[in-house]
């Protein structure tokens, strides 16, 4: 019973940020829902052995690993298995092209801009700016040094600013 209550509390607290992170990684809302479900299910299974203090980092690490697996699976479905998949290829496959074409809403436009970042920068940017994790938490979640987190965040902001300056809809809207 305690485990169930704890699980429900954790679900309520983290599901939105996990979904946002998965959405940024995978692009498609349906895939993000699947990823969130899978991670919450893993949370339920691992809850007795997890330390509450590290749960947030654990959740994001698990989400990231799951999303990368999904992206790799997509690539295997597209090309022969013996091909080495480069980071650039992973980024290409991270976003569903049908979704990218359909930019009817503001949120989808935002995702389209975000999808132009490489995965390594995108995940740091979403964790810091959107989900508001601290540098240390991001370093633990992505298993990289804190300095790397800072550098990637800076690069992500620079690249996004470049992309956004080319987009009329974002610049005109921000001036108004």
């Amino acid at each position, binding site marked *: 019973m305690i485990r169930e209550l704890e699980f429900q509390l954790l*679900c*309520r607290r983290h599901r939105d940020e996990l979904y946002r992170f998965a959405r940024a990684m995978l692009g498609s809302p349906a895939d993000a*829902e699947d990823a969130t*479900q899978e991670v919450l299910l893993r949370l339920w299974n691992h809850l007795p052995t997890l330390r509450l203090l590290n749960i947030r980092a654990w959740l994001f690490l698990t989400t990231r690993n799951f999303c990368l697996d999904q992206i790799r699976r997509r690539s295997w479905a597209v090309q022969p298995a013996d091909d080495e998949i480069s980071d650039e290829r992973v980024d290409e496959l991270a976003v569903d092209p049908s979704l990218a074409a359909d930019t009817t809403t503001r*949120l989808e436009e935002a995702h389209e801009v975000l999808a132009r970042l490489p995965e390594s920068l995108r995940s740091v940017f979403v964790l810091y700016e959107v989900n508001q994790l601290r540098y240390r938490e991001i370093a633990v979640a992505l298993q990289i040094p804190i300095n790397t987190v800072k550098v990637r965040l800076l690069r992500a*902001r620079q690249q996004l600013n470049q992309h*956004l300056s080319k987009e009329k809809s974002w610049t005109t809207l921000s001036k108004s």
Partner: protein
Amino acid sequence: MDDPLKKLIRELRSESCPASVPDQVSQRIAREAAKKFSGVSLLASFVLGALAVVLVGTSLFWPGTDRVDDPCGETPTLSDSGKVLEQTHGVLAAVGHVLIRAGGHAEAALRKEAVPPLLRSFHTAKDKITRPL
């Protein structure tokens, strides 16, 4: 002040997880729990069955006290074999009956006692989550 990047971040922050996700997670957890329980009961039945076979085998092939104490060293008669068969039949029937009852009881107990509280708690939690703040 309100640059495009901040707009973008605000837009991305506005996104939330669909309400169907926790429901589906609850359903999957309930399904997995039911599967786990049925697996445990199956394993228990298997262990009990194996134990019964070993016991019956031991009782059949263990040198009986009657035979050891028999001063004449006579071979078992037809009536003795019949008796042993009858006893074995009785033991097997009893073990089978116990196993069937235990299996039925375990399944009923799991359905009655384990699954409903789990479902109830998930429904309560679901209501709490979906209720507007």
